[in-house]
């Protein structure tokens, strides 16, 4: 009898603990998502009104004359492309080295340095590129901006690439080696394709991260009021444009800052979807 009651009490306690924990985690999840929805909703609410074709295609104009962020959209795309072209191969190569060939002290050092770099505030990267590139060139440039963004990307991509490659089972590598494949062909032909979607996700996260960066661009790409495609000239970007509009005292520009934010978020979402589309598992 007594043992029966004990079993019942234990079962009850278990049920209560379980439901309390479920409620707790569900509430936290709900709040996290709510905040995200609120941010997106509020930006859409404030920004949507100012968006029209002229806003998306025109260059900035003085207060009261309208104008747009066409050059900033183009500038951001160029900066992202430039930083990806530099940062992706570099970061992925570092990740491959760390995962496939990196044993011993040298690799440990590189791993430590990449981890530290991930934590370096991005404005420091901006100042660094200003010192080594903008000062000698005596001019702000798209190139300097792209390099600054690439420097932010590289450590992130390197570490995610390493993690993803490590997830590829040893049995796959051994299978390829047992067929007479040299090490480098195992890496390029079997390991990398198996890790591709994970690496792409990491790369995408890095691109999304830098597309929201303002600080590294302030002293490098600087900003521009004109359409520019030359890499040795200052170039506009959405984030710097948002910053400039947002700190201005004009209501019209504040509205434009909201609208530009909405555009930036849409751009990041579009990159996300595109990358997912192209790296979806084909096999």
């Amino acid at each position, binding site marked *: 009898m007594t043992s029966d009651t004990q079993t019942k009490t234990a079962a009850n306690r278990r049920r209560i603990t379980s439901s309390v924990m479920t409620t707790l985690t569900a509430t936290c999840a709900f709040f996290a998502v709510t905040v995200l929805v609120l941010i997106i909703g509020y930006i859409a609410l404030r920004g949507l009104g100012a968006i029209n074709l002229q806003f998306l295609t025109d260059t900035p104009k003085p207060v009261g004359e309208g104008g747009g962020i066409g050059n900033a959209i183009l500038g951001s795309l160029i900066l992202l492309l430039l930083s990806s072209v530099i940062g992706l191969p570099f970061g992925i190569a570092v990740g491959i080295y760390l995962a496939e060939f990196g044993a011993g002290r040298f690799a440990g050092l590189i791993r430590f340095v990449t981890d530290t770099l991930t934590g370096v505030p991005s404005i420091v990267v901006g100042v660094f590129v200003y010192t080594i590139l903008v000062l000698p060139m005596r001019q702000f440039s798209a190139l300097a901006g792209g390099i600054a963004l690439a420097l932010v990307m590289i450590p992130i991509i390197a570490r995610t690439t390493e993690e993803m490659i490590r997830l590829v*089972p040893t*049995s796959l590598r051994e299978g390829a080696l*047992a*067929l007479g494949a040299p090490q480098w062909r195992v890496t390029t032909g079997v390991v990398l394709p198996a890790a591709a979607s994970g690496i792409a996700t990491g790369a995408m996260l890095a691109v999304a991260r830098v597309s929201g960066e303002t600080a590294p661009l302030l002293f490098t790409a600087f900003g521009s009021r004109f359409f520019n495609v030359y890499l040795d000239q200052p170039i506009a970007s959405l984030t710097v444009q948002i910053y400039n509009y947002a700190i201005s005292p004009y209501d019209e520009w504040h509205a434009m800052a909201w609208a530009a934010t909405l555009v930036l978020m849409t751009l990041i979402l579009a990159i996300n979807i595109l990358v997912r589309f192209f790296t979806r598992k084909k096999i």
Partner: protein
Amino acid sequence: MATPTSTTASVKSATETMQERTRAFENDRESRVAAKVSVRELDFFYGRAQALHKISLDVGSQIVMAFIGPSGCGKSTFLRTLNRMNDTIPGTRVEGSVQIDGQDIYAPGTDVVELRRRVGMVFQKSNPFPKSIFDNVAYGLRINKLTSSKTELSDRVEEALTNAALWPEVKDRLKASALSLSGGQQQRLCIARALAVRPEVILMDEPASALDPIATQKIEELIVELKRQYTIVIVTHNMQQAARVSDETAFFWLGKLVEVNSTEQMFTNPNEKLTEDYITGRFG
């Protein structure tokens, strides 16, 4: 339990018996080469721990030899020394000699990549690449540049899949992912992949341990079929399997080779007490 000295002595006598037997076998069929794989005094170390002690063993051409023994007795480790797969594990060391067709594969200057093409391997867990069925089988052919035209490539792929008894099941979906196959099919695909490069020796590390009885039966029939062309060495935990598929059996215990014998002899009247105890399930 046998003392170490008597075990070593009996290992020697077992090896001698086996060599005699092999010689008798050769006289029957002149086409056979003396020994395809010949191992002498092989020691193997993981760091400081010695995993194999003075293994000497001959595997004849076009036979199936089974390795049996309790877990951790070194049979897989030994199998992996035959295509230098252990090279990939840091801190391992080999002493002694392994000859394949009379050539020492641990001699300096050995082309390990070429060795692994000649000595294929099938693993315990099927490990198809995340590629299409066709590309899996074609992988070894492509990296070793063994074919000169697209038709030749697809012919060789078909041949390998046919030999692995998988062709009828996959011929209409060669472009499908290898991962869409069932476990048994995946393992036969891995066998096909190994066969495609036409190795001389095939090493199988418990190839059927993760499969159901029907898939296991298919693999076993395949092994018996394959020995017409290949020399096969198979590690197995399943004694019935060893009895069904192999011509010769080697019994490993604590990193030592206790006995090598014809499978029939091994399972009916083994030379060693230890072998008998293991086979009859008295320990292990």
